[in-house]
């Protein structure tokens, strides 16, 4: 209970779902052998951290930011370029991550102080513009960032797939560096998630929620809105930077498509809203659902498209084309915004009893 900061997921169905996802992720290499499943699991972990940190901003503080993936990119590029330029050592890794964190903090402070003062709606537009400029910058400064091609790099020896730390397989799985990197990702994501959970359940988190519900009243009670919102921006930026670093470490590659593209930002939005805004457990469910859908829904859609094409129906094959899977997720997204503003978590959480907040 103290580990979860007194904020466990509530409702039997929800608890079962969350437990299933957590078990699946922790034992993924043993439960689902194969490279694709392991990649899917690692991506899910990274996304959970990215989405949870975004939820601090969107769900708890009620601020829409479009620069979240920019911070993800800062982390990914920080780790990636440091390992590329300084060689595959732990020193380079931490130096890169440290620099990335400093840059993220500076950017988040600047954006927050600049645009949260005026009107909160400014923030959405300003972050969109800044993120766009950053994206263009990263792909244009090709001498430094590798441009559109990105950079492939080596990770520290212990994390490389060729590294064996046991001579015999462990429960039928190769005990190599890939397994170690996977558990590094899982461990860091779990730790960061618990820290985020601690933060949103602290008095600071309560004030954020108060500001979200009624800024005037919160200000009248003596809380400085700009201060709290800016800190929330920084916290969320830190989470995203860390997620970016992990992502680069896992992929051993960094480029605009995997680290900065605007479509990741849209994905993150979809995950938060479908999973459930204002609950970090929603991030777990949303990310898991999304990544699984991305990896496996397309097969089903391909089958449907084939069926529709055989039946000679117009337009339907194009709508069910596997590349159009985002269309259906977009529909789910809009429906969630209208009918289930609290997403899966909201739908599965039982109404609160007396005496609870």
């Amino acid at each position, binding site marked *: 209970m103290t580990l979860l900061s007194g904020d466990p997921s509530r409702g039997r169905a929800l608890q079962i779902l969350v437990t299933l996802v957590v078990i699946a992720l922790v034992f993924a290499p043993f439960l689902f052998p194969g490279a694709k499943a392991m990649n899917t699991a690692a991506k899910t972990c990274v996304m959970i951290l990215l989405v949870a940190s975004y939820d601090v901003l*969107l769900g708890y503080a009620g601020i829409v930011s479009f620069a979240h993936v920019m911070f993800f990119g800062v982390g990914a590029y920080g780790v990636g370029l440091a390992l590329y330029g300084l060689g595959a050592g732990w020193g380079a890794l931490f130096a890169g991550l440290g620099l990335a964190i400093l840059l993220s903090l500076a950017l988040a402070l600047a954006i927050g102080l600049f645009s949260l003062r005026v009107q909160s*709606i400014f923030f959405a537009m*300003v972050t969109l*513009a800044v993120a766009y*400029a950053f994206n263009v910058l990263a792909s244009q400064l090709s001498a430094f960032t590798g441009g559109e091609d990105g950079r492939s790099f080596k990770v520290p020896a212990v994390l490389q797939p060729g590294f064996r730390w046991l001579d015999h397989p462990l429960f039928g799985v190769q005990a190599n560096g890939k397994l170690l990197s996977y558990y590094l990702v899982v461990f860091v994501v779990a730790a960061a998630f618990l820290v985020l959970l601690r933060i949103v359940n602290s008095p600071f988190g309560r004030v954020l929620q108060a500001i979200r519900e009624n800024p005037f009243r919160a200000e009248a009670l003596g809380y400085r809105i700009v201060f709290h919102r800016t800190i929330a921006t920084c916290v969320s930026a830190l989470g995203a930077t860390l997620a970016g670093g992990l992502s680069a470490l896992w992929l051993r590659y960094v480029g605009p498509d995997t680290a900065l593209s605007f479509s990741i930002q*849209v994905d993150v939005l979809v995950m938060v*809203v479908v999973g459930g805004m204002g609950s970090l457990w929603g991030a777990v469910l949303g990310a898991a659902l999304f990544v699984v859908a991305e990896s496996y829904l397309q097969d089903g859609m391909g089958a449907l498209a084939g069926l529709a094409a055989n039946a000679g129906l117009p337009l339907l094959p194009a709508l069910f084309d596997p590349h159009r899977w985002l*269309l259906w997720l*977009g529909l789910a997204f809009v429906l969630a*915004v209208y009918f289930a503003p609290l997403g899966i978590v909201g739908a599965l959480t039982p109404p609160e009893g007396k005496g609870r907040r």
Partner: protein
Amino acid sequence: MSVLDVGAALPRHRMEILPALTPVLVAVVAAPFVGSASTFLTLTAAGIAMGMMIFTMASGLTLVFGMMDVLNFGHGAFIALGAYVATLVLLPLASWSATDSILLNLAVLTLAGVAAGLVCGLMGWLFERLIVKPVYGQHLRQILATIGGSIIAEQLIYAVWGPDQIPVSIPAAFQGSFVIGEAAVEKYRLLATLVGLVVFAGEMLVLNRTKIGLLIRAGVENREMVEALGYRIDRLFVAVFMAGSALAGLGGAMMALYRGQVHATIGAEFLVLCFIVIIIGGLGSVGGSFVASILVALIANYAGFLAPKLALVSNILAMVVVLLWRPRGLYPVSGR
């Protein structure tokens, strides 16, 4: 306190002149750095043309925000849709644009523009009814819903037109450029400038000289009061939304022709520019967004010539500087 003088004219709203002069100021400052007069003229003409196209896209967005506090992230989808609808006219009628007859050339352009505007206007109506209306007055859900709408719209565009670029070409009569001294000014840019000016003049006339315009302006200033006086502001808003979407489509069509190719990414790209423009201009102000469009395009052009790397972030820098000077934009609308 003076006694109320019924006969006296209402105090005139004085327009500040300095913000309107900022584009001129930028041009004057940039001129010595550019050096050659012909290059300067070419850059300036190109900047004004680009500014006019951006204004055509952005003016609807600023009014929609001003009236109903709706920040429409789906606006980019209409820009892209307009570009694609224009290809429906331009490609079948390719022979019209290939001929030397300036009348046929103009006809095909007009048809393409009208088609883009009409389709986007109708889609705007649908978008407003389905996506925006259920979440009036709730900023967060509104932003999310319009983003969802834009995802769906973009995917539908891909489903209908496919993911590849579609090449389009400017009709023969508008290719090439006028040469004034040593400066070359593309004909199509002049045409785009003209269209932008007509759109601006039209909007100004409607807003300042008609009853509907009066109601729209009143709605931007104070929606509740207009409603209290018995006007159905939601119907008015639908009309403004449709007009804004139609203009976005027209702007998208113009920009697609200017670039010579159509792709759905044009939507996201210019949505960002539109936001920058309406923030600089002052949210809700058409005149402000007009000035801001020219300002942003001129700065981008000069920066692109003088320091290409800087051009990428010049828009952001321009926005930061303007907001430090006037936190609510060049022409802030009172009441917000």
